[in-house]
């Protein structure tokens, strides 16, 4: 195959394509879930947070744990497209844009879902007009915004040559779509200078995004660790959150790449070998997270200090025990064991394991946020001589908004997958040994 034929084939294989019936059904389900969530949110806007099960003890609930989940998943953008890119792990080239799409859609939803948790969402802009730099929330606003911007640039910048390649393919897309590609190619002509600037910028941003990514989840952990509450009052929280985020993010990439590979028959690009490598990566990240979990729970359990004791009892043998051991065993231990074997890293099983890890990770955030609030320092207030017990069972609207936000994140992802080349055409060409000249020519203004 000649070099220009390779590019031709890559473009044919990787250009955005229409969904089949399953794809359309998927989009339909996501739209319904998102709209249900939106409906519940409109009711919440009218009636206030009263429609939730939140109360003066459990004042943060699944909106917040869901926010932490979104931030966690979004971290994977930096892992795959920055850390692996910088470490020259060429096998991850087909994954970098997938990871970046996951990052962008999740960080957008993190920003939106935090507004849902606010009692006065119409005052959101006060964070900018009256923001006080000493509050960890303001730190979070700053780093999340920064991360979103860098992630968007890291998604769109390496896509310039692909946009230029696609916009030349008249008749293969509806005209509006082709015009969109033309617009997003931002006048790319593919000369040496442009490639040099692009490569340098990608390199610099890849370095820059690593501290920002660590910051978003570290700062998110500080929303809890800067309080005096048992279970949150931990110096381990930053790395503990970051480790957990890398783990769930890697699982998300595996789940998404499996779905994409099936939808578009991309076995040639997202190979079994890539699954194997991602599986190994996920084992390593899970082991790191296991290590931090042991740190987080073993030392306070050993000491049984007041303030931690009742909480740990609740987690280990009390009302949260099924969820706690469920996430630890099914969300971490069993996956680690299974993925340690080569057969555990075959695509289908790895996909299932990843889904279990993602679900476990969602509940893990629930366990980090909510049980602590069941254990205030002061005893629970008695009402008319009867002690009120602390209860939190999320309401239908809370679940509906939460499910809606998860569906909306998947919907953003799905739309981006539908209309963008989610595997980089020019980087794949480079990977397959096509010379720079040819790549430049392919994305240049002249017909190929």
């Amino acid at each position, binding site marked *: 195959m000649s070099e220009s034929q390779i590019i031709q084939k890559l473009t044919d294989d990787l250009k955005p394509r229409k969904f089949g019936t399953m794809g359309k059904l998927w989009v339909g389900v996501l739209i319904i879930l998102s709209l249900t969530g939106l409906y519940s949110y409109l009711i919440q806007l009218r009636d206030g947070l009263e429609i939730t099960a939140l109360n003066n003890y459990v004042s943060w609930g699944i909106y917040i744990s869901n926010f932490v989940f979104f931030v966690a998943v979004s971290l994977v953008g930096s892992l795959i497209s920055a850390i692996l890119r910088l470490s020259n792990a060429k096998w991850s080239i087909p994954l970098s844009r997938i990871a970046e799409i996951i990052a962008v859609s999740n960080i957008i939803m993190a920003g939106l879902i935090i507004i849902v948790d606010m009692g*006065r969402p119409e005052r959101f802009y006060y964070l900018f007009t009256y923001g006080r730099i000493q509050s960890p929330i303001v730190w979070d606003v700053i780093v999340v915004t920064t991360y979103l911007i860098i992630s968007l640039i890291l998604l769109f910048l390496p896509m310039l040559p692909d946009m230029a390649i696609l916009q030349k393919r008249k008749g293969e897309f509806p005209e509006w779509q082709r015009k969109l590609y033309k617009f997003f190619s931002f006048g790319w002509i593919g000369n040496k200078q442009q490639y040099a600037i692009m490569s340098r910028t990608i390199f610099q941003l890849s370095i820059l995004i690593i501290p920002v990514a660590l910051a978003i989840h570290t700062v998110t952990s500080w929303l809890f660790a800067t*309080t005096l509450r048992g279970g949150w009052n931990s110096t381990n929280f930053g790395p503990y959150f970051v480790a957990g985020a890398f783990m769930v993010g890697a699982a998300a990439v595996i789940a998404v790449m499996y779905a994409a590979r099936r939808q578009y028959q991309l076995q040639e690009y997202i190979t079994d070998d890539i699954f194997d490598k991602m599986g190994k990566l996920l084992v390593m990240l899970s082991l790191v997270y296991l290590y931090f979990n042991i740190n987080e729970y073993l030392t306070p359990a050993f000491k049984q200090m007041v303030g931690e004791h009742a909480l740990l009892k609740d987690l280990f043998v009390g009302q949260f025990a099924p969820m706690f051991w469920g996430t630890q065993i099914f969300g971490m231990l069993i996956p680690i064991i299974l993925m340690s074997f080569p057969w555990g890293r075959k695509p289908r099983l790895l996909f299932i394991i990843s889904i279990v890890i993602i679900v476990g990770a969602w509940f893990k955030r629930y366990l980090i946020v909510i049980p602590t609030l069941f*254990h*205030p*320092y002061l005893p*629970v207030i008695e009402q008319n001589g009867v002690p009120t017990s602390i209860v939190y069972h999320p309401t239908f609207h809370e679940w509906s908004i939460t499910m809606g936000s998860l569906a909306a994140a998947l919907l953003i992802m799905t739309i981006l997958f539908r209309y963008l080349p989610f595997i980089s055409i020019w980087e794949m060409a480079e990977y397959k040994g096509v010379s720079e000249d040819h790549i430049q020519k392919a994305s240049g203004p002249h017909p190929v």
Partner: protein
Amino acid sequence: MKKDNQPIVENAASRRNFLKFSIASGALAMLSQIGELPAQENGDGSGEKVRLLNSEGKLVEVDKSAIKPLTENELNTIVSENRKRARKGIEGRKWVMVIDLARCKHALNCQEACNKHHHIPGDRQWLNVYKMQNAENTAPYWMPKTCFHCDNPPCVSVCPVDATFKRDDGIVLIDNERCIGCRFCMAGCPYSTRVFNWGEPENQDAVKDQPYDPEKSLPRKKGTVEKCDFCPDMLRMGHLPHCITACPNGVFFFGDRNEDTVTNGSETYKFSKLMEDKAGYRYLEDLGTEPNVYYLPPVDRLVPFDKSDNLPPVGGHDHNHKH
């Protein structure tokens, strides 16, 4: 804000409008002084009398012609003046509260007065009396708890928009026109002091049309946080907070650290001497929050703590001990 201001007469629907009106000659400052105006001074009017609630919650009679509705602008000016004033605090003061646990009999008059004057809806009271027992074999006792108005307040540190703040006179107050309802302060407070207006606050008819004043914490606003405020509106008028005057057992003392004096209305002590003599302490001292509420230990109690008064034991909490 509603625009259709009607002059008020003494009927059920009218009370809510009372503070939207000022006395005819009324400068804004007079608003809080309606109560002090003797009724006969307004004698040049129609002679028709109208009864109003003043800022202390007392009914007073003024001439109908002496009342005119506030314009939207005047109302906004009052609110913005209130909000500005609320941030400064009362000059030269450093408020302190002392709670004598030996005297508390769980009469709950403090809570009742607080609920009444702050129009607290439902079970969201600012002042709670906890049944405490430091260890299994130690004596149980009642512990009233207000906001501790800490000198190192974790709630203020975490607030992203300066909605809750520490004033010069030591009070930690909330500006509900600023609060975004993120509830970080509720997570930050280790004393479970703060409560939230989850929905539209109930039973607020009497106060909902007042111009907002952070020092009154009224009218309360949906989607924002509230808590015990040490009644700065009362302090400004030279009165003690409601819980102190309501307590039949003289449990609560209030005063000014600068004057080194605290009083429960009938007894007055030198604060430093009282602390020394009765071994005063602060709750959960080791959290480093520097509360401005001090406790006197429950020694030589006036009444035995009645174990049989149908109150269940402290519910499963293993850490109800003082430090």
